[in-house]
């Protein structure tokens, strides 16, 4: 009985297949033509039609997916970025249209034509309007404990020194041939702060968003590889062995007043940094005040995760073959490492300089944590410090410059925006 049903279904399918040309013929369309149109519409045909660079980009996205999944290089961001890159480079899918954002502006009128817009165009609007980095900064603020910084405010200096790498890289990028806006966007990689880099680049050089985001997040994941040789080269074993005095306990009142004071003070002095600093401190106030536990948890988890997905996908979407496969990308990747290295070196050298005047010496290794990369850079300081002196615990001391670096890079972004924006 089952077999009879199978045969009947098969006969029906065959009949339908045989009848189709006659039905199509009635509408003056031949089966052959339909099949050719269908074949021409496939992505494979478009790949053969001179879009072979997309294949290279698909390959690169697969490498990034490998790094995210197998090597666990910042997987939370690298995975959506890599997948966004894969989606945008599928010929014919039409998910992202760079022409809608040409010239650094959103062409709102073109969004009316829904046939010429893809889902990634809509998601990318969040980056273009500067929404995602600010929302992520609220989450970062809610997850950050500024206690070590408040206990040792001198850490702010180390956070500032690590930003020197940004300006040095800006100058190097100018020499290479980038214009001022592009050079500033490349320089901010040295701040090791993903949301800040994306925020500044989307404002100054949106066409470089893909390479800069990939470079920033890749190098942030490579902090344990990049920083230790620089830290060891710039310090003696005796300096690395320095044991720092215990940090004082910071009261809850101090932690609550801090975000309010910093927001008001920095925003009044540097209004262009208000968006980033304001969001960071708002998140931190939610955490410290203790009366909005539900909101604080939402911001730290659900909101942060949702925004991370959108940010990653849309940043990956900008990495089209035309925008990514050129000499500029290669230069950005090389200069990005230099920015990271110079930032780390700046923090270590200032810590050494401060030791000339301080009674209670600070371990210069915590200076390298001045590049943001929270908390990876602080962990590296701890690990390198314990290699020299196993009884030394630098983690909490390094968290001070680490969170100061977040404030510092947001301030630098504000300065660059006010000059070049």
């Amino acid at each position, binding site marked *: 009985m089952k077999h009879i049903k199978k045969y009947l279904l098969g006969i029906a399918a065959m009949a339908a297949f045989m009848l189709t040309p006659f039905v199509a013929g009635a509408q003056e369309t031949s089966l052959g033509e339909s099949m050719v149109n269908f074949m021409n519409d496939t992505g494979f045909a478009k790949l053969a039609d001179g879009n072979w660079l997309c294949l290279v980009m698909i390959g690169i996205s697969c490498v990034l997916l490998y790094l995210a999944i197998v090597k666990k290089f910042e997987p939370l961001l690298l995975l959506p970025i890599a997948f966004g890159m894969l989606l945008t480079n599928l010929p014919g899918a039409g998910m992202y249209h760079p022409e809608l954002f040409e010239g650094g502006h959103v062409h709102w009128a073109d969004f009316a034509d829904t046939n010429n817009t893809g889902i990634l165009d809509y998601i990318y609007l969040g980056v273009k309007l500067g929404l995602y980095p600010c929302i992520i900064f609220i989450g970062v603020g809610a997850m950050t404990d500024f206690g070590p*910084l*408040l206990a040792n*405010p*001198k850490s*702010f*200096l180390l*956070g*500032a020194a690590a*930003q*020197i790498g*940004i*300006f040095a890289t*800006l*100058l190097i990028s*100018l*020499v*290479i*041939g980038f214009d*001022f806006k592009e050079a*500033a966007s490349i320089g901010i990689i040295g701040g090791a702060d993903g949301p800040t880099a994306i925020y500044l680049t989307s404002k100054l050089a949106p066409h470089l968003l893909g390479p800069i985001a990939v470079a920033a997040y890749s190098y942030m994941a490579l902090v344990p590889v990049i920083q230790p040789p620089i830290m060891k080269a710039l310090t003696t074993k005796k300096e690395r062995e320095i044991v720092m005095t215990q940090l004082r306990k*910071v*009261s809850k*009142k*101090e932690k609550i*007043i*801090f975000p309010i*004071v*910093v927001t008001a*003070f*920095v925003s009044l*002095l*540097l209004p262009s940094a208000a968006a980033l600093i304001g969001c960071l401190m708002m998140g931190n106030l939610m955490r410290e005040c203790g009366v909005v536990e539900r909101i604080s948890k939402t911001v730290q988890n659900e909101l942060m995760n949702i925004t991370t997905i959108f940010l990653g996908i849309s940043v990956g979407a900008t990495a089209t073959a035309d925008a990514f496969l050129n000499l500029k990308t290669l230069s950005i990747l090389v200069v990005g490492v230099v920015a990271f290295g110079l930032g780390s070196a700046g923090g270590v050298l200032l810590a050494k300089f401060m030791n000339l005047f301080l009674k209670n010496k600070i371990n210069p290794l915590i200076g390298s944590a001045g590049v943001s990369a929270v908390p990876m850079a602080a962990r590296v300081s701890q690990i390198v410090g314990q290699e020299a002196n196993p009884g030394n615990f630098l983690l909490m001391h390094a968290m001070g410059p680490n969170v*100061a670096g977040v*404030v*510092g890079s947001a*301030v*630098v972004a504000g*300065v*660059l925006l006010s*000059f*070049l924006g």
Partner: protein
Amino acid sequence: MTMLAIDWGFAGLITAVGIGVTFVLLIVLIWVINLQSELISKTFSSRKKEATKPAVTTDMHPTPHEQAAIAMAMHLYFDAHDEEPHIITIQEVERRYSPWSSKIYNVRNGVIK
């Protein structure tokens, strides 16, 4: 040629002002934080003292560390533990016969073979 095309004056200005503003702003923040912590400690210290006084008087129990220190000091002072009698005794318990607890009157005795 590229080097000549760059407006180095502007580049220098951005770099100098950028580094300067970042350092000045963060140094001022250090001063603001120090001022803030001083103000908080001054404002709340008097209230804190009042609030902590009764807590100190009511809590008469020494901390575990203090207890350990006192015990150690006493041990060192007396140079011995408590004296033990070193006599092992077996307490005799006399149970008189009672039919209420006797096994010979168990209800299942008849069934078990």
